[in-house]
Structures are given as C-alpha cells and as structure tokens.
C-alpha cells in the first residue's frame, strides 16, 4: 500500500529548546495513525510541519507524494488540518465559515456536501448561529467539516479530544472511523494513552523522540516483563513498602491499584504477598495483568 505520509529524519528546535529529534515514520494510505504523548513531546510541532506551517531544521516530509517545503501549495490542497485551538472565525456563522473554507479551496459546499454530510448535518439546523456562540462539541464538528470540505486525502488533527468530555470524545472517534472507511488517511495526536486502541498504528512520542511505532497490540505484546496489579487497604503504605522490596524493579500508582514489575525473570507471587503482609498491609490482592499502552509508555520512558 502506498504511503500517505513519509517523514525522514526531521529535527526542529526553537532556540535552545529541541522540539523534535531526528523523527522518521511513515503512514499508510487509509489508516488511522495516532501520535501519542504528553504535553511538550513535540506533537504540535510535527503536525505543523506536515501542514506546511512550519519549516523543519533538518530532514524531509512528503505528504501524498508532495514535499512539504517545495510543494507546499499542493500539500495544502490535498491535506485537511484541524488545529488544537479553535481557529475558525467566531463572528461568522456556521454557514459562512463553511462557505469561506470552500471558496478558499476553489470549491463549493454543495459540490462536496456528501463528504461532510454525516458530521455537518448534525450542526446544520443551527447554520445561522455564530461560531463563537457554539458549544465545544458543536465547534469541533464545524472545525472538522471545514477541514474536510476540499476533499483532502489526508486529515491532520492536533489533539481533537483534549479538554473534551468523554461523550464528545467518543463521538469524535466514531467520526474518524467513518472518514477512514471513506478512504481518508487520518493522522491524529492525543495525550490520552487510552485512545491508542482506537488507532490502526501508533507512535509513542516523548521529549521530541519516538519511543516506539507499531500496532497497539504489538506494542503491548512487546512489554517484556510480568506485570502485577497490587491492591491493599492503604495505597500510600503499600507503595512505600513495595518500593523498599529488594526485588522491586518499578512500582507506580495506577488508579485504584498499583502496577509492579520485578527485577527477577521468574518469581513467586505468594512470596511478594508474604512480604507485604509482614510489613503490615491488609486486604492485599495481587493479580497478573495485561499491560496497557500507558504501562508500555512508562516502561519505554524508563528504558531511555
């Protein structure tokens, strides 16, 4: 399958701050690719380079066969971009924003209506309302409609689910899935590790560097240790005690329990149980669990 995005050795610094260090990755045509990492990892910088809004210091990026520097005009007509911050005209109505975007790309809302129908029809009843007066979820639907109206092959979305409540988050992912089915390549960044499973492939990014690129399943399968989930009546005591255990490799709070890895390759769970009981922990529960993407991310961060 052809690659929609091909990034080779891209680096970018702002003064002394290194935002991206030698990033290389490729995105297949028609997949949902997730760029997953915390604030400050370099996600926005990378997306802006792909959207031709920022020049890389080194390296190259090709979008739908066009170079983001030399052929930036062609890239712009074949790529849709939804920035993290709502950037439409607040004092234009829904309808006017749509017409503006369509006109800028030399098309009309009518011509490409079928592309945005599923999303736009949900806000169309309010088309005379100004963008500034819309709720968060509606703004997002409008921004998405505007970024799709010129029939892009690739859609770049910069943290579309940040600060959005779980219901709207769920709706957004449902919309992305539909776009994928329509043949659009989706490149989406997110700080939420739990959204990894909604992507076909993901890149984990931290401090300007890629920690891993693969399908979510393969990343989880590459976790090379036995992961235990441990509970007790007093989380804080449990955490301090398990960290003092001579075989403790890592122990992190993880919601209601804590996640533990051992230094040894093989070990007995009852032994750990005994140790915790002897330290005075009560209602201790230990279970072997399958790692989540967040466990993998932390494991890779520690390994760096």
């Amino acid at each position, binding site marked *: 399958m052809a690659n929609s995005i091909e990034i080779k050795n891209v680096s970018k610094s702002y003064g002394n701050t290194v935002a991206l260090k030698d990033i290389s990755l490729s995105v297949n045509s028609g997949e949902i690719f997730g760029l997953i990492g915390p604030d400050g990892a370099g996600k926005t910088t990378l997306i802006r380079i792909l959207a031709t809004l920022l020049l890389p210091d080194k390296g190259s990026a090709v979008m739908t066969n066009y170079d983001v520097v030399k052929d930036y005009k062609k890239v712009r007509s074949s790529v849709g971009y939804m920035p993290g911050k709502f950037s439409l005209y607040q004092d234009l109505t829904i309808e006017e924003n749509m017409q503006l975007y369509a006109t800028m790309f030399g098309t009309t809302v009518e011509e490409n209506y079928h592309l945005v129908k599923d999303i736009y029809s949900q806000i169309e009843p309010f088309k005379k309302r100004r963008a500034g007066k819309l*709720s968060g979820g509606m703004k997002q639907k409008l921004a998405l409609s505007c970024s799709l109206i010129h029939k892009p092959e690739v859609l770049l979305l910069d943290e579309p689910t*940040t600060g959005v409540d*779980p219901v709207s988050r*769920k709706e957004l992912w449902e919309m992305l899935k539909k776009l994928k089915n329509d043949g659009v390549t989706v490149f989406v960044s997110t700080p939420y590790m739990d959204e990894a499973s909604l992507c076909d492939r993901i890149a984990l990014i931290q401090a300007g560097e890629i920690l891993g690129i693969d399908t979510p399943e393969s990343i989880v399968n590459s976790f090379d240790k036995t992961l235990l989930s441990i509970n007790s009546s007093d989380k804080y005591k449990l955490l301090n005690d398990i960290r003092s255990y001579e075989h403790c490799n890592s122990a992190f709070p993880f919601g209601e329990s804590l996640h533990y890895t051992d230094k040894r390759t093989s070990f007995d769970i009852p032994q750990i149980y005994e140790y915790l009981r002897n330290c005075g922990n009560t209602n201790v529960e230990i279970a072997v669990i399958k790692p989540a993407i967040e466990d993998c991310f932390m494991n890779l961060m520690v390994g760096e």
Partner: protein
Amino acid sequence: MKKSNGYSIEVSNLTKKFGDFVAVDSISFQVKKGEIFGFLGANGAGKSTAMRMLCGLLSPTSGEATVGGYDIFSETEKVKRSIGYMSQKFSLYEDLTIGENIEFYGGIYGLSKLQIKEKTEQLLEKFQLTEKRKSLISSLPLGWKQKLAFSVAIVHNPEIVFLDEPTGGVDPITRRQFWELIYEATNSGVTVFVTTHYMDEAEYCDRISMMSEGKIMAIGSPRDLKSEYSSSNVDEIFVKIARGGGK
C-alpha cells in the same frame, strides 16, 4: 462556629440559580477528613459553580454547606483560610522566580516571615531545586510546575485542598509522582477535592461523584460504581450517565 465531626465538607441541598437557569440543583454529599474526593462532570454540568461556592467565592441560592467546619453562607473568610487551591490553568507566576513564588504564596496565606523562610527551604530541598531558586518558574517543565504548585497550595497546612484538573497533559511518570504527593498529603490528614473531566484521574480518588445538568447522578468508590454500572472504567460510566442514566 466551627463544626468538627470527621467530615471536611458537608453539603445538603445546595442550589445555585442564575436567573431562571439552575446551575447547581440541590446537591448533597459529604467528604471525610483525609479523603481524596473526585468531583466529575461534563463541561457545563455545574462543577465550577459548585466548587466556587465551596471555596467561599460565590454565594449559594439555597441549601446548606460547611467546609472545614465553617458555613459557606456566613463564614466565607474562615472558609477561604482553611482551604488551598490549585488549577492547571492558573497556578504559579511565570515571571517570578521559584523562591519568590513560594514566598509570595506563603505571604498570601498569612504565614509569618519565619514560617515562610522555613517552608521555602523545606520545599526547595524536597524538590531538589535549591540551586534553581533564582530561576524563573517559566524555565521549569510543566510537570515540575504542577508538583511545586500543589506543594505551594498546601504551604499553610489547610484542612482541604481544591484541585481543578490538576494533571491533564503531563507525561505518565510525572503524573504519578504528582499523585504520590497527593497520597502523601492525605496520609498526613489533608482532604483533597479534585474536579476533573479526565476520567482516568478519577480512578485515583477514594470516592467520586458524577454531575450532569446540575445534579449529582452517582456517588461512590470507583470500584463500586464500576460494578454498579457494569463498566470496566470510569469513562464508560460517564458516557452511560450522560446519555441518559441507564445502568
């Protein structure tokens, strides 16, 4: 009069109306001393309005509530003195140095000069920032700022600290270090009230409540709620409640 009965926050039928709009609709709950209580809800559910009332910043329309034993109708100044507050959006002053920020908040919270000096040294040492005390806050990574901001919010040993979406966007390891600071604080008796719409933050709380359209729709430990709503995570519970409350 200060009440003391093992609860840091007691709320009964608390209501706030803005004109005809009922932002907070007769909510009732209690938060135990030393508990981590998560206050969840969608944007516009009424979380901020409720929290502003509990912090003594907004006067309720009706109902009753005490925070740290003080009445939020008649003793707002005492309420303010017994709480700490931290939000991700606003915490430390970027154009003051690390040392200046600690001293500034110590002063605001009414500590003596000697206490401020002691606390400043103590915090700088705890975070190994002694050598960076003269650096601007803006030079610190986000995660460090948040850890420091939390410590500053409890610099005056308040009974309760309010955290408004404290850890969104931070890397997973730093985020855990932040929660460990919270556990450390609750272990020494501080009550923590967290508002958030990041559902994975909710999993760290002892108990959570979920608000929708001004009302509290569910309340309990994350574990109990997950079994009550047959969901594998808090996110699913939230979606179920927001879509019409089906269990």
